[in-house]
């Protein structure tokens, strides 16, 4: 085969298994937490549109509630990015950090808490946010309570983020 600008085989042969595992971990963290957040924000948004239809004045509070399930996606991205820093992906193709198989596995394992907890908790948080938005429609003055309840769910995403961070940070 004629050599083109992009040679997949050559690129893959440059990567060790450890590096591949780490990259897979980063991808899982970003897309699972991201999908969860998209879903959670979507659930809250649907409820929000209904309530704003009846009372446009609560738009600001509804927006805050809708935004809350969005943080999990950010946490996932954050972990993915930390993996990229560890791998020195941004330093150019030739300068990647060398990772052993065990290190790669540790990074992949480290990505899982934020990926899985982020994914599920964002959806559950979206549901609580939707209920909070309904509450807002009935009693606009109780937005504080609705927001507090929604934040309870977030605790576990933050804990997962911490676990992921610590596992990855001390892997390399």
């Amino acid at each position: 085969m004629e050599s083109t600008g992009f040679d997949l085989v050559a690129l893959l042969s440059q990567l060790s298994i450890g590096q591949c595992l780490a990259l897979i971990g980063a991808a899982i963290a970003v897309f699972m937490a991201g999908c969860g957040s998209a879903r959670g924000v979507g659930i809250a948004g649907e409820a929000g549109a209904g309530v704003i239809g009846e009372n446009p004045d609560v738009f600001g509070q509804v927006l805050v509630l809708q935004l809350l399930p969005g943080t999990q996606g950010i946490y996932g991205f954050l972990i993915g990015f930390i993996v990229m820093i560890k791998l020195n992906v941004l330093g150019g193709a030739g300068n990647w950090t060398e990772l052993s198989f065990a290190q790669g596995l540790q990074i992949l394992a480290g990505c899982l808490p934020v990926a899985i907890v982020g994914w599920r908790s964002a959806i559950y948080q979206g549901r609580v946010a939707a209920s909070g938005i309904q509450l807002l429609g009935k009693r606009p003055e109780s937005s504080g309570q609705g927001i507090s309840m929604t934040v309870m769910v977030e605790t576990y995403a933050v804990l997962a983020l911490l676990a992921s961070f610590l596992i990855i940070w001390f892997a390399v």
Partner: protein
Amino acid sequence: MAIAEMKKLRLLALRKDKARLLKVMQKLGCVQVVEQADEAFPADTLSAQKLEELQKTIGRLDLAIARLSPYDMHKPGMLSLPPEAGEDQVTLAEAGRGDTMKVVERVEEIERTRGELRTRENRDRAQLEMLRPWEAMDVPLDKLGETRSALVWAITLPQKNLIAFEERIKALGPARIDPVSRVRDELNLLLAAHGSVREGVEELMREHGASIVRFEGVQGSAALNLDLLQGKLKRIEEVRAQLQQEVQQLAGHLPELRLLRDVEALERSRLEAGQRCIDTRSAFLMTGWVPAEKAEALKAALRKVSPECETEFLDPEEDEKPPTLLQNHRVVAPFETIVRMFSTPDPRGVDPSFVMMPFWVCFFGMMVSDAGYGVVLGLAAAFVWWRLGDRGLGKMAFILTMGGLSTVIWGSIYGGWFGTTPYKPVLDPMNDALKVLVLCVVVGFIHLVAGMCMSAYLSIKRGKPLEALFDQGFWLMILVGIPLILVNGTLGGIIAVIGALGVLCTAGRRKKGIVGKVLGGLGSLYGITGYLSDLLSYARLFGMGLATGVIGMVVNILAGLLWGAGPVGYVLAIAVLLGLHTFNLFINALGAYVHSCRLQFIEFFGKFYESGGRDFAPLREDTRYVMMSREK
């Protein structure tokens, strides 16, 4: 940290002074009138009627204001205070009530006319749509129809049937069709035939799916009518434009409308309060709650307008629950809103605002944790606070100003400035992650201990120092003893063991029987897991701070990549920097706000808070659009 002491006011005064007394109370804003019902004294129907009228007037004013507001030339901005109104303006507004209500009437009239115009327009447009296909047909529409000898019909026919239909019609003899127009697959035709073949024509029409169009009550040709309708619609548009102009002019009266609305609302509040009193023919008795420190001033003010009135201030009875009024230094006072967001404290409990405030501010700073963001947030919030004072958004702005200040301090310690680290930080959350995590848990530990001290303080204040020792003192010994083991093994161990034994012996003291007491003690000791999970909860201080820093860093890297792409890249890079940093600031400030509240509500308040109070809601000048000016 204070919940204001309340006195129960009983006021006996002459009925003729009632209105003036209520006015004075409203001005002072320190009496919450309590509902009293006594069947021996019938309710005041006259004022009930007046109240209903007022309610209606306020509703009409609100509606007119809502209609006119979009055309307000001098719309008050979010960041400006509402106009002030003094005694003179109120008198003027009351004198000009007739004129102002005329404006309202005119607005309502215009609204009605607009509704009618809409109905007429819809009707005319529908007719226009029906006539348009027949524009080319010059037969007057009222001449269509059938007589004994002839029929002239306007019909519609599916296009695909045209050829067949035309042939069969021609075969009938004295009949013909003329095409007029086509709308999609339907043809519009004029059909003329001799009366003798009517049945044949009807039969053919049925077979080919044709139907007659009737124009009831329309005179003259379609073209003529179309012209007429166009003219009518144009007239409607003209009238509408005129009305629009008038509405814009009427919007100039908005200040009067708003003032009158508030004046009426003030009177409504007074009447509502007045209705809660017991009335006789010439006197009335009022009961209400007054903050103890305002009692003397109130008495003097009431005496001034009605020298005959009798007042007495009583302490609340054991089974009475006065409303809760939180009173704090003006630096702490805005944070009362956070406490009230959780719940209003019990009047016999404790106001946690004062103790909560430094922790709240500290946590907020740790979670936003970027000094650059702190500067931006603090300055923006300080500006809003400076404009609004303690009205409306002003309180929130003050809270965020303090939060911004704390963010600058923590950001400097962590070395975060807009996602960059310009100097070697005192504590680096990226490379000294464990140290920062420990710091967060230590801060949380202090927070928890403060919460337990509050609880102990409450017990001691109520004269139960032993309760404080049993329920908090021993626990404090455990909580302080365990970490102390790291420093001084024996001393820490002894303290912790004494504490644990203390809890074991005393926690089950209210249970019955030896077994119950022992189990109670063990169960309580198991509660140590609760403290552990509480402490871990403070790890979020680190997690949220980390999120801000890393996202800021990502933004900078992205912008850096764009910057390398030449002049277009510069513009894009600056846009990315501005947009994404703003987004990051917003989402993290929001997160820090709610998580800081959560740490107060669950971890801190959980230790001592007694909710279940009702907010003090005095008769006061609760206006919406104007600010009543304060006179001495």
